[in-house]
């Protein structure tokens, strides 16, 4: 870092013979590198001790049984119906929520990015206020809304739309409705920030060349918004895969997802081997997705979109 060297040595720059400059620069660069690594050390220490080492230990546990090394815990995932079904359901729900959040997130991000002033702010507040509100609070609200005698059922009954209360809790419906509500802002915010940067002039240029609005939208706007859709989808899908709180409260112990399998194996059965194997398969899938997407969009950008 020649600049750092310059800064340090400015006052006595003339007193040093030019011959030693290369050495001094190299020494200075080493010192700079060391001090940067030292600055990084405390944060790194926290993550290594409280995250990486425990993960290594989980990996160790997953291949360990009373008779020593064994892959039985992994075999079980493929052999036992309940494990396989849980993984399948988790992927299904994550996929549904991701698709729905694209379908619902796109229009509001579009509207917010094309509007100005009061209306744009109103839309953003409707997205950001839930985003900053505790997931527990929102799950509670959905419990209140979706119960058998809850607000939604009461309203629909009073309006005569239904004769029987709908079952919207302790099943996939409730899980999807509640999870989607948590995930939607994760889709809208990156979409909005991408769409906001698309200049209006491009649309006008396209239309002045004779393109119909829909054609302009499809050929000009959509390709430019695609990175936002991609970033949002990855974020939503990955968070869904490991999501625990809302599915647990709204699924009510009947819609079992992978995260609940881990939690139950640890807390109820103390089956560390099973919990670790399930968890590591989940982790592997998540890393695979991040690794795949990293070639198109840097991970930091995706995570920073929150």
């Amino acid at each position: 870092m020649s600049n750092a060297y310059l800064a340090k040595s400015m006052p006595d720059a003339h007193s040093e013979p030019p011959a030693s400059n290369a050495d001094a620069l190299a020494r200075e660069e080493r010192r700079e590198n060391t001090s940067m690594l030292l600055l990084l050390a405390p944060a790194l220490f926290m993550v290594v001790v409280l995250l990486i080492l425990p993960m290594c230990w989980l990996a160790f546990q997953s291949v360990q049984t009373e008779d020593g090394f064994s892959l039985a815990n992994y075999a079980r995932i493929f052999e036992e119906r309940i494990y396989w079904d849980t993984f399948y359901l988790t992927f299904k729900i994550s996929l549904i929520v991701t698709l729905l959040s694209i379908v619902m997130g796109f229009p509001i991000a579009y509207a917010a990015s094309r509007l100005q002033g009061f209306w744009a702010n109103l839309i953003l507040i409707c997205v950001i206020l839930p985003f900053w509100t505790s997931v527990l609070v929102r799950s509670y609200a959905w419990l209140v809304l979706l119960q058998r005698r809850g607000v939604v059922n009461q309203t629909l009954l009073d309006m005569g739309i239904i004769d029987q209360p709908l079952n919207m809790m302790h099943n996939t419906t409730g899980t999807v409705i509640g999870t989607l509500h948590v995930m939607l802002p994760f889709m809208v915010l990156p979409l909005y920030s991408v769409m906001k940067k698309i200049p209006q002039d491009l649309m006008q240029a396209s239309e002045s060349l004779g393109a119909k609005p829909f054609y302009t939208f499809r050929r000009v706007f959509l390709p430019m918004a695609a990175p936002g859709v991609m970033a949002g989808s990855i974020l939503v899908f990955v968070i869904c895969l490991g999501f625990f709180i809302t599915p647990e409260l709204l699924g009510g112990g009947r819609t079992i997802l992978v995260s609940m399998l881990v939690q139950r194996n640890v807390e109820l059965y103390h089956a560390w081997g099973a919990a670790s194997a399930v968890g590591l398969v989940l982790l592997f899938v998540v890393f695979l997705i991040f690794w795949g997407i990293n070639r198109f969009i840097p991970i930091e950008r995706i995570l920073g979109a929150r």
Partner: protein
Amino acid sequence: MNTLAYLRQLRLSHVLFTVLVAAILLYLIIPVLIVVPMSFSEARFLQFPPKEWSLRWYEAFFHSAEWMSAARVSLITAVVTTAVSLPIGMAAAYAINNSSLKVIRTLQIVLLLPMMVPIILIAAGVFFVYARVGLISSLTGLVLAHIMLALPYVIIALLAGLRNFDMSQEMVARSLGMNRFRAFMAVTLPQIKPSVVSATLFAFITSLDETVVALFISGGDNQTLTKRMFTALRDEIDPTIAAISSILILASLILVVVAGRNKQG
């Protein structure tokens, strides 16, 4: 005539689109708003809109030693987590921004891991480690875990500020004789203040909101508000939760305003 038909069609699609957007926004905002009137209901069972109004659920919250203790634990944890993760995260963000070392790029990804690894796994891992070293149910353990979880948010927020800052200003200060730390404090820090504010908000909210790790490792006198709420929600729906939720919604409203001001200023 043709143009008129086209215009009419355009108007119709406009109306449909507006209705669609309004419906999605209602879906987003209604769950946040519905909790507030429920919290002022007199009834023990859920009814909406409430038939009689009262403050009994707020009294239930503020007069309960258990809820108050949980709120205190959550607040202390959030404050300490923020106070510790900010300097640690700042040091890391500074190093990432200023160093051209290749290994630092890799380490940067490592520092983002707490955001990538599913929280349930982090909770299981931390639970195991704490069981060995006797940190289960301790405030220290809770704070340490929350610092680790908050670090990536802090680092991302601060990096955004540092990347837009011209580091040669700090160089100038140093070439004029300030040491590096003083130059940072006097020149760089004041200019990246908005990103420091958002890092603070993120660290605080990450800790205050965190439920899954707290579910595994907090207990006894050191249960967090989130853990108590989660347990209460799973067992039976106690309207006290509506009162707590309303207080938390008010808190997030304040945060949104602060964050909005911060962005503009």
